[in-house]
């Protein structure tokens, strides 16, 4: 049981509830007008606004992925007959693709969209602990995202059409901004300005991430309802908690790195630039001290979604709850100790290489535990192939393969052969894209009925997900092979022996696009024409399924009491009403709670 008595609604807010809203009123219809959205303190509306934002970023990043894959169809220049201009365009494309996808899509997708929407409802709370701070995070994100995209797109427009936008310096450094290339030693006079501008964008985005982390941690500590001790929390909350810890501890380091770059540029202190006594490898240490944990900011919430989805749609209590919960925390802590594995060939000491290699392997164990637990959860279940479940199974395929190929990279002698090649590109796309994207889609399909009160079409959704799975493997499996054969990454042109792999990879990217558009139309179709969703279409037992779909403005008219979040057997399908019905008596027995008024 919880050690802290949770306040009913949120810190500092009155305990009394307003009278129940009129029937049919929900957070979408609660108030009208664009301003009622832009300045909403409602975590659900903020979550939906993040959804629009990250999907826009995903579209932009995706378009540039297709452009760069198209450029790579042949070794020669594709979009421009002048080689120098074609290579510059390509370099801007892969930088924009990587930077937008990492900072504006993969990092915020699950915590900011799904986390914001479901975390307070899962806690049975009215909102997050600090609703105004939450709106502030959102505006930081929007400001940072627009600024960041503008700087990067400006460079592309300049490179392609010669349009000079004020401040649109562009960036061709890759999303890693390695010094000294990023600080002016390049053939582009503006690269330092572009780097500083882009890092300023990342700096602003970082605040959004930090403040969201603070908010989630405070919410989970303070707002858990009666009956929800730490080990009664849905695993999604454990995952978001672990993610928030990383966001708070790692993000400031990236901000500091940006400030140091600025100090070097403005005051001329030699920090990273060897010409004035700095050390460019130091930059890599700073950068990866943030960016390695950031990989877990991406994957941990994905794991949380998968724990919810697999259990619910297999209609089975999640297997090994404690191991999954502890492994989230273990991964969060270990994630801070492995950054040096990005730098095995940079010239850091052999001893450091050995230590980082050993620590890297330690992360493999909690990750493996999770996969075994998810698969075991399906054992003796009653599995429904909903699109959420299909996406979750695709996640297991992607994550198992992506995670296991990490063994090649953790092993020092193998890493030295494949680092800086397409093998790395393939590996991190399996983990950060294949896994996180499928988990995000699984989460969207799982909570779409809750968000919008509409069911998605099963056949089209599954077709889209499977097309995406095929396209993804077609894109990235050849990249493993060409990487192992020695094809370096970030190459605008390549030896002709690799063309076969590049062609297959590009075709795969087009297939992925077809899959993603199918999914997009499927979700939009649900919004417009979808069947009305009941409060609990999946018979799940976490608290968000105990309130109507879509939830009313303040979620729960009466504070709910939490039971076992994975007690799915207490929900029985009622053939007469075509609905899942809660056997309250049984639920209380399972949860071991006193009988109370239970709203659903």
């Amino acid at each position: 049981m919880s050690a802290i008595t949770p306040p009913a609604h949120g810190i500092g807010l009155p305990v009394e509830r307003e009278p129940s809203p009129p029937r049919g009123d929900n957070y979408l219809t609660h108030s009208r007008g664009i301003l009622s959205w832009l300045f909403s303190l409602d975590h659900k509306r903020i979550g939906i606004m993040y959804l629009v934002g990250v999907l826009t970023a995903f579209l932009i990043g995706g378009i540039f992925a297709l452009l760069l894959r198209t450029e790579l169809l042949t070794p020669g220049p594709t979009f421009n007959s002048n080689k120098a201009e074609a290579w510059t365009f390509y370099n801007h494309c892969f930088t924009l693709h990587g930077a937008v996808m990492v900072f504006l899509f993969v990092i915020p997708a699950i915590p900011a969209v799904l986390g914001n929407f479901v975390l307070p409802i899962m806690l049975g709370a009215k909102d997050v602990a600090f609703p105004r701070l939450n709106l502030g995070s959102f505006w930081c994100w929007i400001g940072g995202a627009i600024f960041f995209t503008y700087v990067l797109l400006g460079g592309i427009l300049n490179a392609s059409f010669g349009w000079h936008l004020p401040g649109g310096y562009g960036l061709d450094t890759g999303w890693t901004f390695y010094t000294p290339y990023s600080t002016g030693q390049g053939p582009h006079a503006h690269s330092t300005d572009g780097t500083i501008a882009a890092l300023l964008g990342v700096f602003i985005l970082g605040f959004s991430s930090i403040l969201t982390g603070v908010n989630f941690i405070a919410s989970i500590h303070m707002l858990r309802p009666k009956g929800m001790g730490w080990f009664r929390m849905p695993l999604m909350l454990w995952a978001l908690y672990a993610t928030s810890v990383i966001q708070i501890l790692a993000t400031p380091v990236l901000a500091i790195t940006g400030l140091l770059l600025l100090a070097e540029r403005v005051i001329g202190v030699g920090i990273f630039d060897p010409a004035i006594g700095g050390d460019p490898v130091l930059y890599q240490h700073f950068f990866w001290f943030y960016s390695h944990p950031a990989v877990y900011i991406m994957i941990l919430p994905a794991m949380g979604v998968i724990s919810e989805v697999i259990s619910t749609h297999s209609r089975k209590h999640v297997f090994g709850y404690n191991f999954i919960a502890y492994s989230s925390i273990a991964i969060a802590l270990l994630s801070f100790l492995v950054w040096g594995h990005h730098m095995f060939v940079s010239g850091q000491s052999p001893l450091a290489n050995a230590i980082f290699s050993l620590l890297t392997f330690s992360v493999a164990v909690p990750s493996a535990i999770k996969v075994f637990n998810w698969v075991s959860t399906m054992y003796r279940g009653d599995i429904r192939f909903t699109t959420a479940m299909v996406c979750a199974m695709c996640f297991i395929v992607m994550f198992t393969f992506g995670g296991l190929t990490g063994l090649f990279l953790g092993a020092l002698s193998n890493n030295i052969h494949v680092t800086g090649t397409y093998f790395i590109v393939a590996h991190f796309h399996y983990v950060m894209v294949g896994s996180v994207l499928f988990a995000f889609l699984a989460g969207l399909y799982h909570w779409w009925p809750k968000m919008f009160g509409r069911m998605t079409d099963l056949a089209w959704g599954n077709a889209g997900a499977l097309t995406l799975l095929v396209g993804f493997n077609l894109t990235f499996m050849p990249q493993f092979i060409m990487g192992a054969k020695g094809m370096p990454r970030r190459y605008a042109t390549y030896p002709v022996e690799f063309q076969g792999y590049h062609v297959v990879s590009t075709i795969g990217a087009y297939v992925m696009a077809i899959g993603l558009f199918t999914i997009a139309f499927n979700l939009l179709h649900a919004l417009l024409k979808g069947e009305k969703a009941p409060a609990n279409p999946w018979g799940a037992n976490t608290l968000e399924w105990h309130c109507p779909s879509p939830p009313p403005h303040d979620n729960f008219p009466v504070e709910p009491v939490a039971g076992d979040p994975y007690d799915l057997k207490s929900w029985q399908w009622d053939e007469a009403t075509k609905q899942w019905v809660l056997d309250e008596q049984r639920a209380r027995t399972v949860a071991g709670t006193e009988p109370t008024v239970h709203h659903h």
Partner: protein
Amino acid sequence: MLLSILAQSAYLPPRASTVAPEVDGLFNAILAIITFFCLVIFAAMIVFAIKYRHRVGHEGGASPGHSTALELTWTIIPTIIVLTVFYYGFKGFLNETVVPPNAYEVQVDAYMWGWAFTYPNGHVDPELHIPKDRPIRLVLSSRDVIHSLYLPAFRMQKSAVPGRYNRFWVQATRLGEFPIYCAQYCGQNHSEMLSKVVVHDPKEFPDWLERASDLAKQPGFTPIKAGGQIVAARGCLNCHHTDGTASTGPTFKDLFGKQEVLNDGEVTVDENYIRESILYPQKRIVKGFGPVMPSFLGSLKDNEIDWIIWYLKSISANYKGDMSAGLSGGAVATSQAAPATKPAQ
């Protein structure tokens, strides 16, 4: 296209170094481990998905919410596996790190966008030529940004970092030519920063080095030909095209004798301006180009600069002078002995 993939069915490059078999052995062992685990996990998932799928009359069964024995098993087994993989990776890395005592040393200088390999006798070559069966110690640095010397056939890679020296060693086990790539993104022409390793028979290597060290001793030598070889070998042509198009630098075509507009002022491209631009490239930059060219001070000899000038004259319509000295094999003997401070011509 598919056939070309199948034809190269091996998923690793040729093995040409002493460490390659060990690296590949570990690679194949890991491949076997991950194939096994993927099969087990995917098979379990698919079997469960089919066997326990929802259908009329099927009800989910009960199974324990956790099992300490099972969970400890699948914690301990992966731990043992990853520690074993770590051990062999570390062992291979130690072999790659500890340089044998009698190694032949080659300096590697990386720049945007090419490689300069300096041999013990002072010869600078754009390709890495090494004798077979002898340990070679490479000492890397960079003139500008971070590059990475990647030798896939040798399974070796190391960054070339400005302001510090990185070291590694290789020992070739096969004669032949193998690709060199830059594997650390370094700007516009990163993907064209290529070269090759040429592995020689140990008995023939000294002959190669002697021949390569002095272009004047090569058969068919003329200053124009030698100049052409140098601009190709030293990476000049990466930025200075010879087809009249401007790239990162001005084109070499018709450059000699041309009137160029600088950022401040003008200059006629003559012997002195070319020499100055090679040794002190930031001094007077043609308008529209960035200060990105590295200096070749101390790395190009005077006679080599002379040959480059002859080469530029030979491809310039603006040069109206006598070309015969540039075409004759003997014209070089005088300038070869010249002191380093002598102004060109």
